[in-house]
């Protein structure tokens, strides 16, 4: 089953009515339900723009996106998506429990269902002892873990993670990856954008390389590394993009 189907999507940002260079240029990719897809590329390549179009926050100029056969931006397409943004910001005056009730209501979950899910979820991401503290007092790592909890609240079938491991210490990253592996083993497809390539290598079954809004290469990690002669994803990535870093454009 296909969890995410992006077909020929293009998007151009506009500033004061003038078009900027295309952020997405005829991008197509698919993520199967049993996959963890690593979406890689240098800064400004179009990763976050792709994620925003999947979530309906941006409308593509051309192309179609389907999530579990539901067309984006139809709001039903977001019913089974869990999303953790980069540097998530929550309503700081709410506690994790209050926040989960808020997000749960947005998913249309009944009070009984929310109460059943929230405590185990907070325990799973190891912030249950902080359930009654205001999120405004949390460290970056604690916010990141709460971000994962809210992303899992609706029992998603597709989890979209934008830099999920940034701001976590080494121990936190290990724990976070363990949780993600467990979530995936429960049958959740993942679409993950990250610059921490060693983690991507460990987590992802398939990767796609995006540059200037185009998908340049796609395949499973082992095959890509074997065909390119690199030992790890980081050296492969650096070698590929060192001459065309978008910061030099």
């Amino acid at each position, binding site marked *: 089953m296909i969890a995410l189907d992006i077909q020929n999507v293009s998007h151009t*940002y506009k500033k004061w009515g003038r078009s900027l260079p295309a952020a997405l240029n005829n991008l197509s990719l698919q993520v199967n339900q049993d996959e963890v897809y690593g979406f890689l590329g240098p800064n400004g390549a179009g990763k976050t723009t792709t994620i925003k179009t999947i*979530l309906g926050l941006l409308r593509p100029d051309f192309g179609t996106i389907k999530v579990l056969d539901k067309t984006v931006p139809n709001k039903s397409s977001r019913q089974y998506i869990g999303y953790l943004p980069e540097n998530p*910001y929550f309503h700081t005056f*709410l506690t994790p429990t209050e926040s989960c009730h808020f997000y749960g209501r947005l998913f249309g979950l009944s009070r009984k269902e929310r109460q059943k899910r929230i405590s185990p979820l907070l325990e799973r991401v190891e912030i249950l002892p902080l359930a009654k503290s205001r999120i405004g007092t949390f460290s970056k790592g604690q916010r990141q873990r709460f971000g994962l909890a809210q992303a899992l609240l609706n029992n998603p079938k597709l989890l979209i993670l934008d830099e999920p491991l940034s701001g976590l210490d080494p121990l936190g990253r290990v724990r976070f990856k363990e949780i993600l592996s467990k979530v995936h083993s429960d049958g959740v497809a993942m679409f993950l954008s990250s610059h921490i390539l060693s983690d991507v290598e460990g987590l992802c079954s398939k990767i796609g390389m995006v540059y200037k809004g185009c998908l340049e290469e796609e395949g499973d990690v082992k095959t890509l590394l074997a065909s390119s002669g690199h030992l790890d994803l980081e050296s492969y990535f650096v070698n590929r993009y060192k001459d065309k870093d978008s910061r030099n454009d």
Partner: protein
Amino acid sequence: MISIYAIALATFMEAVRNKIVWAFGALAILAILVSRALGWVSSGEDLKVMIDVALGAMLIFGLLIASFISSHLLYQEEEKKSIYLVLSKPVSRLEYVLGKWFGLMGVLLSHIIVMLSLFLPFFLAQGGKYHNSLLVAVFTMMLEFAVVISLSLALSALTSPLFSAVMTFVISLLCHGVESILELQQYVNSVLAKRALSVMYHLLPNFSNFDYKLEAAHNMPIAINGYTFLYACAWLLLFLGSAVVITQNKQL
């Protein structure tokens, strides 16, 4: 519906935990206390002055809350990107705007209830008598707040928070003086200026339709009819509809 309720509740909770709301509330209470002092210096009219000043304070601080808090909250949601976590759920942008509107209405309603529950016992203790026109004046004030909040949401979706807050507040004050624009036309010679004033008169909602402070102070019967309500609904729908259209077309 549950999405609208959830967003309204979160908006309400965020607003009432904002120190600015409490500062405006404290100043409004101070104004109510000052109304007594002003009453003493106005021979024989002290209770009327009390009502006039108290209702004026409720209005001004309500307008400040409606202008500044709504602009601040919307800006903060976009700037800090917490809006992504709301709109990435199965929530339409229409539901988002309506949720914000209801939440802010809840804040203004609380402001009115708190002010009234402080003012009324104080007023009665000073020898004043309760009359229905007071509540009718407060009800029409809420109609005005409903329009102002929707104007603020529309401007916030379009411009920066400070500009939209100041614009909302200034436009609200101008709308109280719409009748004066017609009078001003008589003193202007330029045809162009007359036209400009005429356009302004027709473009701005006339908030004197909601202003019954004087009638309440003098215990005069207030005959509000369906027109007042329909007039508020028409402007409310225009501004709220604009806010929805702007938000729906916004690229986040």
